[in-house]
């Protein structure tokens, strides 16, 4: 192994070491702490409301998950995809493209 190959080998080794060290560091300092998690859960138990306060500008996206999976818009049972409804959460993809043929008009 010549000098350049050794350098390359050590470079990769350093990078991998850096990656692992960074991972360990982040895992020990940046994960949600037990105390913080307990506080978050305590708050959710009080409010009993889903979703995060990161899109608060419109009432229909604030607690988006309060609609069913099939309702795009919290206040509307429609299934269409349009901007505000899918701003944060994608619309339901489990829609029957074609309804089963049942004779409803008897």
């Amino acid at each position, binding site marked *: 192994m010549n000098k350049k190959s050794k350098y390359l080998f050590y*470079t990769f080794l350093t990078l991998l070491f850096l*990656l692992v060290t960074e991972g360990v560091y982040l895992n020990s300092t*940046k994960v949600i702490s037990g105390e913080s998690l*307990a506080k978050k859960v*305590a708050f959710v138990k009080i*409010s009993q409301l889903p979703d995060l306060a990161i899109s608060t500008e419109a009432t229909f996206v604030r607690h988006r998950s309060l609609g069913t999976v099939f309702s795009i818009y919290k206040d509307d049972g429609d299934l269409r995809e349009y901007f505000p409804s899918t701003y944060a959460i994608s619309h339901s993809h489990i829609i029957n493209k074609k309804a089963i043929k049942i004779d409803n008009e008897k």
Partner: protein
Amino acid sequence: MKNKINIYLIEYAINAILRQKYKSFFVTTVFTLLTFLLTSVFFITNSIKHELDATVDALPQIIVQKIKAGRHYDIDADILDNLLEIAGVSDAVARVWGYYYFENAGVNFSVVGVDQFENQYKESFNKIVKKFDFDKLEADSSMVVGVGVKQIMLENYYTKYFNFIKPDGTLKKVTLAGVFDAQTSLESNDMIVMPKEIVREIFDIEEGKVTDIVVKVANPKEITMIASKIKQMYPDTRIVTSEDLKVSYQNIFDYKSGVFLALFIVSLFTFFIIIYDKSSGLSSEEKREIGILKAIGWKIDDVLKEKFYESFIISFFAYIFGVISAFAFVYIFQAPILRNIFVGYSQLKTTFELPFAFDVQTLFLVFFLSVPIYIAATIIPSWKVATLEADEVIR
């Protein structure tokens, strides 16, 4: 194994990279940037999902809402007793809550009502609000607000109380009793919690009506069955179960990271096409190099191996470096600029820290989207040249 990895070919590949330092530097930089961008976006999405999943089990098991003419309406509180009679239902709580638009600042507050006698709240309040007397909440007509709400109120010179404008135009003065712990700001930033009676007054919700009803089920396996029973009893209701909430959380940010992924794939493939195009029109010097190598006895196999090492060194280095930078950018520097994609346009901005959530899938996804494709884009043109006769290439 020793026979398989030819150290001399690796040395040759390093020399080849160093010979074309500017090209190699440029390719590595672009590659690192692309990997960095994609992994950063995925890391941010993962963190927010992780944050949501952390509290999903504390959410109600069944929520019953009244739907009229396709819109959400207040529901009769009387049905609470009927719901409690369903076998398997252990508790049902009527909720009063809504959104209050504060015109001065152009922001929406979520106002939630709690009952003083519901003792389960007491412990939770003590955990997240400092120096706070829960029993005085109703007596003093006061409220507890999120950090963001407090900030907006301060900006509008409300330090001790806030004047809510009722639907009839009169004011309702509510004293500020406390602020939720900043660690809950992702959940509580725009929230105001106050006694139910005051919420009723502010929103003019008549007695006997509530916003929705939360149902607790003793056995979680019965949730679906009880939800369908409620739906049968009250066909005009919309039932949201905890399972629906989980599915909704699973869907979260698909749209945004999807749009980003689509844009990214376009740029990634443009990059590969440039590499492929550049390599397939190999410069006469590079062609001559391959020709000479063949003339001195290198096999096609050797040429391809050397090209493989060359491209692997560049792409793997760029990938690892990109991932390391993305980790640092997202979790140590908290993703400046990029995280704004996921945060709304509201004036009521949340200050929050992205929690670290390690996801191997993301790393594999980005790896397979980038490294093998780059290697292929480099090897294929070289293979085309290497299969030609040596004298033909040199000439």
